[in-house]
């Protein structure tokens, strides 16, 4: 572990760390453009030069291409370094279009930021001499390039080649005619294309989904976890407080990857990136629905819960718990599933509980991030025990079969839209033979049309929760904003229902529910909400996986 000094402050750093990363440990930023922690080092922007004193010799060195070695003394703020930075900034800005007023990156642009911090020169360029390049280039289905704004750092080029293994962007022409373009015959259409927008230190690459939507300084940021598949990439939700009159009032403006070394490093896939549209989609359920007599007059959540409680009590008295089946969801959080299990399995002794249904939709899977299992919490459901039990319990497939034959008086379904699983005939039979169907869902769909009672669910951005990814890592989401309408987190419904059925718990918050999981569930033994931190923790019986660089199996070399 080399011991070095940066701006007079001593620090011991891990082996193999370059000076930019080493300085970060001291919260010192060595400004840079082309360097990115996740990509190869090219050293072309020349912004990260620092003064290095080593072995009695003084030199100017690159922060990115110099590995920390014992005894190094680094100065990041000398007059010479300042003037180098100012010169590099001035070089970048000489032809830069400076269309900050209409540039999506304004406010989070490293050219702006560093100019304010290190540049602050007056322009020496005659406006008429500014070189013009191409603007509004459609480089792919989701991304637009403004090559006048591009500072040719090649981060995007390297990302496509090194992380995704695709040759889709390149720099063509040389000298000051160099220009970023699609590799001839290709489009930027890989599953991770959106990351180039995050990577781009300036506003050269913008996301069609976010372009011209909001100034970034109006956005609030909430750390969360993508629920798009079982990997659970760490993300930040960038959202707006007021619902706009535009874009069907979307509150989430974009999702950005959030670093987690063991899950997704710096990246997310496009499937996850654009998954947020569901949150403010027009078909969100805002109110409870009763398909029975109150339909016309509206119904309260309490009325539905009371009715459900009464029916459950009556049926158990009459036929026992075998005539109740619960189809939970692997899209639900650990807290939801824990309360579901407490109520139905532990308290009501319902054995027919499952979250898995045959034929659940799968997504594509690759060796970078994307998992075929689109449910974020199947591992958690397993660990908590939202499964058939007691020897008699039926699994999801058997429950669906049985329901058609009228085996169940009460069917409780979370999230699964059975109209997507069953043919019309089977569905008709199931409906006809089941006395009471309670359905919980965030969106209206075929199922919400045919269930007896429907309760609206809050979505991931609207609530704090934990999910267990395929590795067994438990990760927290935070609540960005309130649920739409009367939508409520699933666990709260079970909590209320439990109270009505004589199962008293006193959990006020998801934090308390999670801590209860830690007390009552083997795989979560001893875990507490506060300990999860922003990078999550493994289930107590799941081994921490070995570190793996998030990368395709056949990366292309730097350039």
């Amino acid at each position, binding site marked *: 572990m080399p011991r070095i000094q940066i701006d007079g402050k001593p620090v011991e750093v891990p082996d193999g760390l370059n000076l930019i990363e080493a300085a970060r440990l001291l919260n010192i930023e060595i400004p840079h453009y082309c360097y990115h922690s996740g990509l190869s080092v090219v*050293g072309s922007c020349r912004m990260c030069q620092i003064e290095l004193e080593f072995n009695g010799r003084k030199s100017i060195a690159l922060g990115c291409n110099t590995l920390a070695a014992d005894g190094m003394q680094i100065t990041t703020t000398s007059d010479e370094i300042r003037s180098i930075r100012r010169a590099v900034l001035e070089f970048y800005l000489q032809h830069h279009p400076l269309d900050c007023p209409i540039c999506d990156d304004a406010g989070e642009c490293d050219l702006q930021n560093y100019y304010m911090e290190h540049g602050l020169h007056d322009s020496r360029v005659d406006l008429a001499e500014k070189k013009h390049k191409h603007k509004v280039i459609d480089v792919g289905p989701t991304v637009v390039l403004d090559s006048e704004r591009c500072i*040719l750092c090649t981060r995007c080029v390297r990302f496509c080649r090194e992380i995704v293994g695709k040759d889709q962007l390149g720099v063509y022409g*040389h000298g*000051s005619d160099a220009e970023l373009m699609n590799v001839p015959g290709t489009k930027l259409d890989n599953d991770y294309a959106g990351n180039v927008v995050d990577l781009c230190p300036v506003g050269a690459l913008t996301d069609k989904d976010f372009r011209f939507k909001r100034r970034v300084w109006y956005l609030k940021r909430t750390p969360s976890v993508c629920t798009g598949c079982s990997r659970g990439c760490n993300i930040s939700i960038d959202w707006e407080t007021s619902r706009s009159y535009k874009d069907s009032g979307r509150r989430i403006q974009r999702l950005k990857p959030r670093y987690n070394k063991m899950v997704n490093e710096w990246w997310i896939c496009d499937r996850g990136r654009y998954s947020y549209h569901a949150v403010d989609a027009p078909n969100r359920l805002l109110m409870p629905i009763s398909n029975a007599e109150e339909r016309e007059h509206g119904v309260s959540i309490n009325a539905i819960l009371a009715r459900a409680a009464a029916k459950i009590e009556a049926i158990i008295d009459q036929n026992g718990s075998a005539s109740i089946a619960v189809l939970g969801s692997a899209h639900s959080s650990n807290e939801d599933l824990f309360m579901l299990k407490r109520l139905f399995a532990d308290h009501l002794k319902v054995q027919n509980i499952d979250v898995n249904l045959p034929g659940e939709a799968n997504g594509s899977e690759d060796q970078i991030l994307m998992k075929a299992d689109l449910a974020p919490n199947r591992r958690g459901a397993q660990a908590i025990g939202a499964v058939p039990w007691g020897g008699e319990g039926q699994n999801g497939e058997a429950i669906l079969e049985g329901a058609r034959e009228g085996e169940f008086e009460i069917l409780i379904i979370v999230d699964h839209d059975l109209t997507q699983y069953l043919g019309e005939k089977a569905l008709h039979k199931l409906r006809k033979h089941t006395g009471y169907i309670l359905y919980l869902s965030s969106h209206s769909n075929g199922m919400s049309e045919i269930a007896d009672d429907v309760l609206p669910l809050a979505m991931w951005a609207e609530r704090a929760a934990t999910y267990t990814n395929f590795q067994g890592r438990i990760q927290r989401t935070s609540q960005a904003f309130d649920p739409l309408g009367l939508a409520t987190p699933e666990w709260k419904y079970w909590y209320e229902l439990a109270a009505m059925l004589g199962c008293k718990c006193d959990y006020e918050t998801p934090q308390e529910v999670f801590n209860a999981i830690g007390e009552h569930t083997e795989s979560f033994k001893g875990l507490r909400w506060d300990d999860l931190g922003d990078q999550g923790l493994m289930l107590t019986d799941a081994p921490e996986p070995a570190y793996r660089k998030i990368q395709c199996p056949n990366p292309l070399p730097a350039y």
Partner: protein
Amino acid sequence: MSTKQALLLSRNFAKTKQAKIDVAMKHGAYSMLKKAMSMKPDEVTAIVKESGLRGHGGAGFSAGTKWGFIPKDKFPRYVCVNADESEPGTCKDRLILERDPHLLLEGALICAWAVRAERIYIYIRGEYFYPAKVMQQAVDDAMKAGFIGENIKNSGWSCSVHLHTGAGAYICGEETGLIESMEGKKGFPRLKPPFFPAAVGLWGQPTIVNNVETLAFVPRILEIGPDKFAALGTPRNGGTALYSLSGHVKKPGVYELPMGTKMKELIYEYGGGIRNGNKLKAVIPGGSSSHILTAEECEDLPLDFESVAARGSMLGSAAVIVIDDTVSIPQLMIWLTRFYAHESCGQCTPCREGTDWLVRLAHRFADGWGTRKDIDDMFELADSIDGKTICALGQAVAWPTKSYLQKYRHEFEALVK
């Protein structure tokens, strides 16, 4: 050519059909390869080191020392012959390629023997169609004659030779740009460290990159012995050099003279003096990338690496460009900066943006709207490029720019609007 010329390299330049292998062999070609192969590789390297042979591609690095940088246990190894000759003013490698290709091949093979390389690549600049043709013929002939290929002359050592033509980029003469280009990539010079291709070169393997002229000297060193070779030149500057003399002399051309020959001697004795009886104004001593020297600074200047450096310039590729008093330095600045702006690979910011900016400022003086501040700005820009780039093209534009501005500031000031 005068008798005072030391005919080491250029000995056979005037002979007809020297490019044919039988003619070349009659004149001794490949005999030194045989001699080298009778020695241990390290012995050959030691001899080259002793001879004081310096690199003639520009940096003047000791050839023997470079060969010694090859790491012990890393194989395969390669030799790259830098025949990209594109430094303005330089036109000497071409003569070797065209007129004595077997001398170069022999030198390259001896180098390959010395460093135990299994393959030689000759990287020829794209515009050299004819030299490439001659060279390819020479390679084919040498292969037929058994000097190239499997188990050369029953030594158990195999070495192949491949010709690769560039596409006309100056930057592919920079050794790591050359290597990238050879690997089939864009000719982007590599980030340093690693500093030496001898350690990490072509496809990451140990690679010796030497200039054509440097390698062509090697058979001659073995022939006359390192001591005699060293004695021809000045201390630490062994042997002779091919001086490419161009510009306003009466007899421009390539002259082979001992290292350390006086500048005045080259210009007046060999070059026949300044054209039209004009006055000598300045000299660019080592290709366009070197600092300009005023006529006074050229007095008594011995043309070897140390002496020229001591006078604040560099011998570089020994391309001496003579400038008479009809030349406007601001005009020269336009030519200079345009060349480098055009040849910048565009990889790193100061060079990509700075060269382009320098061109615009230089043009202002010719167009009559330059200001005093522009003069200072040019100097500052050059300073912001100098030493702050990935490859030495940055210096190559910054050094001459600064020297023009320093030594001929009055000419720029005279054009201020």
